[in-house]
């Protein structure tokens, strides 16, 4: 099946079986190995990508579903030409939010989705926003700190913040 979609800003056309999983299409066919596969069952968030700006799990999507969509993988956040990184990526480095790195691409994309919906989240809202992404190394504290810092550059991410009213 011929599928046309936008991948990290470039129009892409591929000829793949319609039932190929999106994670396999991205990693195996297109060679973008930043997207990881953890559980393959929607329970870990490692394969998170943005589809039309919203976080989705590429292990639970079939290639046919990409037709006409705009997708962003971790590679799309920082064009290799200019060496710059996305603010969330910068914050992950700055705050030591990466250990083995396997969950990082999914975490970063989930954080971007969260910040788009809620540009000024408190730590509880960040924890909830990242609750679909498992990390087995860091204990999450530094990841939450990094996202808080990316939301408000200059803010001390460890400082407790006033609790907002419940949603």
């Amino acid at each position: 099946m011929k599928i046309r979609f936008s991948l990290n800003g470039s129009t892409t056309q591929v000829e793949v079986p319609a039932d190929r999983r999106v994670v396999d299409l991205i990693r195996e066919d297109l060679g973008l190995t930043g997207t990881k596969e953890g559980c393959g069952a929607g329970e870990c968030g490692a394969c998170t990508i943005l589809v039309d700006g919203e976080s989705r799990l590429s292990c639970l999507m079939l290639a046919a579903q990409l037709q006409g969509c705009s997708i962003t993988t971790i590679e799309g956040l920082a064009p290799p030409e200019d060496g710059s990184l996305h603010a969330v990526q910068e914050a992950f480095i700055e705050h030591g939010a990466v250990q083995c790195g396997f969950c990082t691409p999914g975490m970063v994309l989930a954080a971007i989705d969260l910040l788009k919906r809620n540009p000024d989240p408190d730590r509880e809202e960040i924890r909830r926003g990242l609750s679909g992404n498992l990390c087995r190394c860091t204990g999450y504290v530094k990841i939450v700190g990094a996202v808080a810092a990316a939301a408000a550059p200059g803010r001390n991410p460890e400082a407790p913040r006033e609790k907002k009213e419940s949603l």
Partner: protein
Amino acid sequence: MNQVLLPGSLAELWQALDIHPEASVYAGGTDLLVQIRNGLRHPTSLICLDRLEELKGISRQENGTIRIGSCTAHTRILVDPLAQKGLPVLVRAIEGLGSPPIRNMGTIGGNICTASPAADTLPPLYVLDAEVELRREHGVRRLPVRDFIVGPGITLLQKGEILSAVWIRQPVEYHAHHFEKVGLRNALACSVASLAALLRVSDDGIIEKATLAWGSVAPTVFTCPEAEQILIGAPLSLEKLRQAAAIVRRDVSPITDLRATAEYRRVVSGNLLLRLAQWRTNPAAGA
């Protein structure tokens, strides 16, 4: 499996179902694609409802009933003002469903049709007396969700038919709109036991109406008219709730699985009721 069809309109859907009557139909794919991967299902073709805008959206009907299109993603329901204001018990259940990306992908219609004993939206839809709208090429019918679900993974959906919407009357006569789920963790956790409850309580604390439904403690959602009858007419007190809880523990039929033992589920399904004693003082217990 080879074919994946992505109809863009209901007309295209009926055509696809006509040509591929054996196809598995899915919306978010968060259950079906896992089942296929685990070798539990082997469809030769798939029809994805993701592009059917006609099946998405939340609207208020003239009589105040809220209609939710079956392919409305959980995330959309969470942020919808009509749902937030009119259906708090459903919104509270969806807040704890899966995870943010699962809620972005999964839909209310999918959650109903999967008919899992642990489905998070089903206990609220039972207490709300929701109806499902079932559509085929030449016809529409409506059924109470309580009748539509007949067993674990089994519904009255017929070949050539899809679930197109859910109709929910706003429960304006109730004061407490309560949902609580017990899982092994807060996110990405299949429920071990859950309770949805609507209570109407008079100014002097007498329960005037009560409707209760439990998830994960029986093959389908468990309801308990006997426990409701014990509560109705009685003061909302821990003592009365304990009496009702004893009936619930007696009548549930839970199983032991990797998440919990049957005995634990039996105890918890009764205990979940006790939280209702706090609803006036603790909004988290159902405001």
